[in-house]
C-alpha cells in the first residue's frame, strides 16, 4: 500500500495557498485576490512518486491567536489534528508580516517546509532572499514558488517527500534569555521534555507556573506573560527577517498606489463603483442576449425536431414523444437557454475578485454603510451574493463580530442571484416595454429591503456600537484569463448540474402530475392543477390566480429556476405542437450561421453605452404568447417581487442554518415570506388601480 502524507497548507490570507494547491493537485478550488476567499478547510489529493499526498488548504490566518471563525478552523487543524507536514506559504514581498505565523508554526517542532510564494512579484520590487541561510537558520527546507505560473511546484512536492522521509524538524525559535531559562526549567522538571514549545508557551499563558516563574517574569518586565511572549515572537520575526531578506531598490509609489489614487478617491471612487456595477449588468445582459436567442432557437428549431424525428423513426410511442418535448425541452431546455447570462455574471464577478477590486468596495462603501450601522466589510459577502447566496453566507465567517455576521446574513438573501435573474429576464421582457428598467428596479428593491432589514435589526435585536474594522487591501493583479475561465466553468458546471438533477427531476414530477389521472381532456383537472389550486388562496391577494403559476412556485423552493422549467412544462403540455418539416442539413447550416451571427452581435453590443433591452427574437413564441395571455402585467410584477424577496432556495436556507442555527434560518424564512407577500400585495393592489 502506498504511504499517505497529510500536508497542511498554512499561511496568511491572500498569499496564494489555494492557487498553489490548484497547481499541485490539479484541483479547481475557488480563488480570488482578497483576504478571506477560503473560509473552510478544503482538500486536494495527489499521487506523487509512490506517495498519496493529502493536502488540506486552511483559511488564511495572521497568527495562531484566532478571532473570527475561519481563523479558528485553521488554528484548530494545526494545533489538534496533527498533520504530517506543515507547508507554510509565505508571500515573499510581505515576509516580515508573514514571519510571525511562521514563528508560531516553528514552535510546534513538526516537519515543516516553507514555500516562498509570489517570488516573481517580490523580485520586481527588488527583494532578495538568502534562501540557503534561511533554510540553515531554521533547519527546514525553503523553496521558491510561483502559484500563478506553477513554477517551483514540482520542487515543492519533491521537498515535501524529502521532508517526510527524513523527518526534517525545525529548530524552534529562540527567545530572550530570561524566558528561555524558565522554559528550559519547566520543560525538564514538569514535562520531562515531552512537550513542544508552542504548548509550553500556551501553558504559561494560561497562567500556570511551577514555582512562581511567571510572576517573576511579569514583575521584571512589567508586562503580562501573554504580552511578553507576544513581543518575543515579534522580535524573533523581525530579526530573522532582517537577516535573510534585503530590499535593493528604494521605496517608490507602485502601480497599485497610483491606481488607488483614482479608484479610492473620496468622490471619484464612489462614481467609479457605480460605473463598475452598471457595466457588470450591461455586459452580462447585452453580451448574452444574442447567444440566448441562439440557444433558444437551437433547442426549439434544431435539437427538439431532430430528436422527435429520431424518436418517431425508432417507433417511440406518442407518450415518450410528449414526455420528451414537454418535460425535457419545455422544462430543462427552457432553463438551459439562460446559460449565457449566468455564465457572463459569474465571469464578470470572477474578474472583480481576481483583480483586487472586491475588497476595495468595502473601503469605498464604508462611509455609507457606516451610517446605516453596517460594516464596510459586509460589502464583500453582499457583492458575492449577486453571484450566489450560498458562498456569500459562508463568506460571513470572516467577520470578526457575531452581530455583524448575523446582520449581513439577514441581508444576503435579498441580493438577487442569477437564478432569479433568469426568471426576471423572462418575465420582464414578456410583459414590459423596458425590461432592463424593471430588472434594475427589482435588484434595487432587493437591496433596499436588505438595508431596511438590517436597519430594523440594528434598532431591535442587534443593538450596540458598530465595531471598528481592520483589513488588508491586496495589490491589483492582472487576472489570468485561464483562471477566470476556470472559475466561471466551475460555476457553469454547477448550473448545468442543477439543470440535470433538481430541475430535471422537478420537470418530470410536474409532467407526471399533469398527466394524472390519465386520458385527461383538460389539464385543469389534473393533479398538478389540484395542488396549485389548493395554494391559490394564499397567492390570490398578490395577483396570482392561475393554478399554473402557483403550481410552478412549489418546486421553486428547491431552486428558483424551476419556476421556469415547471411553467415551461405546464404550458408546453397545453400548447399544441406544430408538426413542421425538418431537414437535417439545411437546419444545421442555419444553426451554424446563426451562432456566428449571435457571437458577432454579442461583441458589437459591448460597444453601445446603454443597456439595450432584452429583446428576444420572435421565433417559436407560442409559449410566450400563452403565458402573456394568462397573466396581467401587475400580477407578473408582483410574482417577480415575491420570487425576489422570498428566500425560496433550499441551498441558501440550509447554509444559513449551518452558519446561524436552525432557528435563525427558519425565522428568516418566515420573515422573508411575510415581507415578500406584503410587498407583492402592495405592488399588485397599486398596479391594479392604475
Amino acid at each position, binding site marked *: 500500500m502506498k504511504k499517505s502524507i497529510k500536508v497542511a497548507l498554512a499561511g496568511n490570507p491572500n498569499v496564494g495557498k489555494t492557487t498553489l494547491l490548484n497547481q499541485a493537485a490539479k484541483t479547481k478550488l475557488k480563488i480570488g485576490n482578497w483576504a478571506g476567499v477560503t473560509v473552510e478547510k478544503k482538500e486536494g489529493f495527489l499521487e506523487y512518486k509512490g506517495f498519496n499526498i493529502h493536502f488540506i488548504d486552511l483559511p488564511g490566518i495572521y497568527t495562531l491567536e484566532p478571532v473570527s471563525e475561519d481563523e479558528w478552523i485553521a488554528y484548530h487543524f494545526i494545533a489538534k489534528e496533527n498533520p504530517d507536514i506543515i507547508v507554510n506559504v509565505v508571500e515573499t514581498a510581505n515576509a516580515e*508580516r508573514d514571519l*510571525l505565523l511562521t514563528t508560531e508554526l516553528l514552535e510546534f517542532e513538526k516537519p515543516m517546509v516553507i514555500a516562498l510564494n509570489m517570488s516573481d512579484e517580490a523580485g520586481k520590487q527588488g527583494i532578495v532572499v538568502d534562501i540557503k541561510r534561511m533554510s540553515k537558520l531554521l533547519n527546514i527546507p525553503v523553496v521558491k514558488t510561483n502559484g500563478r505560473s506553477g513554477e517551483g511546484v514540482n520542487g515543492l512536492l519533491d521537498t515535501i517527500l524529502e521532508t517526510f522521509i527524513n523527518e526534517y524538524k525545525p529548530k524552534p525559535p529562540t527567545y530572550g534569555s530570561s524566558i528561555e531559562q524558565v522554559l528550559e526549567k519547566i520543560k525538564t522538571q514538569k514535562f520531562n521534555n515531552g512537550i513542544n514549545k508552542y504548548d509550553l508557551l500556551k501553558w504559561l499563558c494560561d497562567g500556570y507556573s511551577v514555582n512562581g516563574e511567571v510572576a517573576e517574569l511579569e514583575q521584571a518586565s512589567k508586562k503580562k506573560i501573554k504580552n511578553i511572549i507576544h513581543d518575543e515572537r515579534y522580535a524573533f520575526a523581525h530579526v530573522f527577517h532582517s537577516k535573510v531578506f534585503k530590499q535593493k531598490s528604494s521605496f517608490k509609489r507602485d502601480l*497599485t498606489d497610483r491606481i*488607488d489614487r483614482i479608484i479610492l478617491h473620496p468622490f471619484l471612487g464612489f462614481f467609479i463603483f457605480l460605473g463598475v456595477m452598471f457595466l457588470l449588468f450591461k455586459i452580462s445582459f447585452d453580451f448574452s442576449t444574442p447567444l440566448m436567442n441562439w440557444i433558444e432557437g437551437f433547442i426549439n428549431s434544431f435539437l427538439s425536431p431532430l430528436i422527435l424525428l429520431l424518436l418517431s423513426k425508432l417507433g417511440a410511442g406518442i407518450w415518450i414523444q410528449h414526455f420528451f418535448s414537454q418535460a425535457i425541452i419545455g422544462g430543462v431546455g427552457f432553463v438551459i437557454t439562460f446559460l449565457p447570462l449566468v455564465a457572463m455574471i459569474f465571469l464578470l464577478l470572477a474578474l472583480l475578485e481576481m483583480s483586487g477590486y472586491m475588497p476595495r468596495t468595502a473601503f469605498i462603501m464604508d462611509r455609507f454603510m457606516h451610517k446605516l450601522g453596517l460594516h464596510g466589510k459586509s460589502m464583500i459577502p453582499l457583492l458575492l451574493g449577486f453571484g450566489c447566496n450560498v458562498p456569500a453566507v459562508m463568506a460571513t465567517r470572516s467577520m470578526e463580530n457575531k452581530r455583524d455576521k448575523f446582520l449581513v446574513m439577514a441581508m444576503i438573501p435579498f441580493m438577487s442571484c442569477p437564478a432569479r435573474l433568469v426568471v426576471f429576464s423572462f418575465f420582464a421582457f414578456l410583459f414590459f416595454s423596458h425590461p432592463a428598467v424593471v430588472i434594475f428596479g427589482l435588484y434595487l428593491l432587493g437591496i433596499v429591503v436588505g438595508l431596511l432589514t438590517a436597519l430594523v435589526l440594528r434598532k431591535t435585536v442587534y443593538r450596540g456600537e458598530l465595531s471598528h*474594522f481592520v483589513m*488588508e487591501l491586496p495589490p491589483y493583479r492582472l487576472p489570468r484569463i485561464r483562471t477566470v475561465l476556470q472559475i466561471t466553468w466551475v460555476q457553469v458546471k454547477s448550473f448545468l448540474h442543477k439543470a440535470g438533477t433538481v430541475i430535471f427531476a422537478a420537470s418530470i414530477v410536474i409532467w407526471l402530475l399533469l398527466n394524472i389521472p390519465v386520458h385527461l381532456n383538460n389539464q385543469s383537472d389534473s393533479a398538478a392543477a389540484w395542488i396549485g389550486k389548493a395554494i391559490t388562496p394564499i397567492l390570490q391577494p398578490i395577483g396570482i390566480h392561475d393554478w399554473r403559476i402557483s403550481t410552478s412556485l412549489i418546486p421553486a423552493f428547491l431552486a428558483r429556476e424551476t419556476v421556469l422549467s415547471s411553467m415551461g412544462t405546464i404550458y408546453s403540455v397545453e400548447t399544441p405542437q406544430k408538426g413542421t418539416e425538418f431537414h437535417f442539413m439545411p437546419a444545421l447550416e442555419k444553426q451554424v450561421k446563426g451562432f456566428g451571427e449571435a457571437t458577432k452581435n454579442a461583441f458589437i453590443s459591448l460597444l453601445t453605452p446603454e443597456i439595450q433591452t432584452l429583446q428576444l427574437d420572435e421565433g417559436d413564441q407560442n409559449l410566450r404568447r400563452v403565458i402573456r395571455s394568462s397573466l396581467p402585467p401587475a400580477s407578473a410584477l408582483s410574482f417577480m417581487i415575491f420570487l425576489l424577496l422570498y428566500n425560496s432556495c433550499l441551498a441558501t436556507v440550509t447554509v444559513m442554518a449551518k452558519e446561524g442555527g436552525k432557528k435563525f434560518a427558519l425565522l428568516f424564512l418566515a420573515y422573508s415570506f411575510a415581507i415578500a407577500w406584503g410587498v407583492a400585495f402592495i405592488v399588485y393592489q397599486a398596479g391594479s388601480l392604475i
Partner: protein
Amino acid sequence: MRVTKSHFKNMFNPGAIMPDTLAKIISTKTLNDLKVGDAGYIVDFFNESEAIKKMEAMGLRRGRNVSVLQKQGRGIILKVNNSRIVITSDVAGDIEIK
C-alpha cells in the same frame, strides 16, 4: 490616548491627573493626526484590544514606518512595508505616532 472630558474635569481634582501628564497627552500624536501623504512611525499602542492585536499581526507594529495613502469617512488606508491596511479612525486613535 484620546483626551476626554474627564481629563479636564480631573485637572481641578488634586491627586488625579496632573497638568504635566495632561500636557503630555495633548502633545501625543496619534495616527488620526496624520494627513494623506504623511508618514510617521509607530511608537506605542494605548490598549491591547483585539483590533490592535490583529493589526499588529498584519504588520502594523511598534517601530514600523507607516504612511497614509487615503482617508475617507472613518476609514484610513495605511501603507506598511509592502502591504496596504485599512483601519478605522477609532483604532487609529489608539496608535501613538511620531
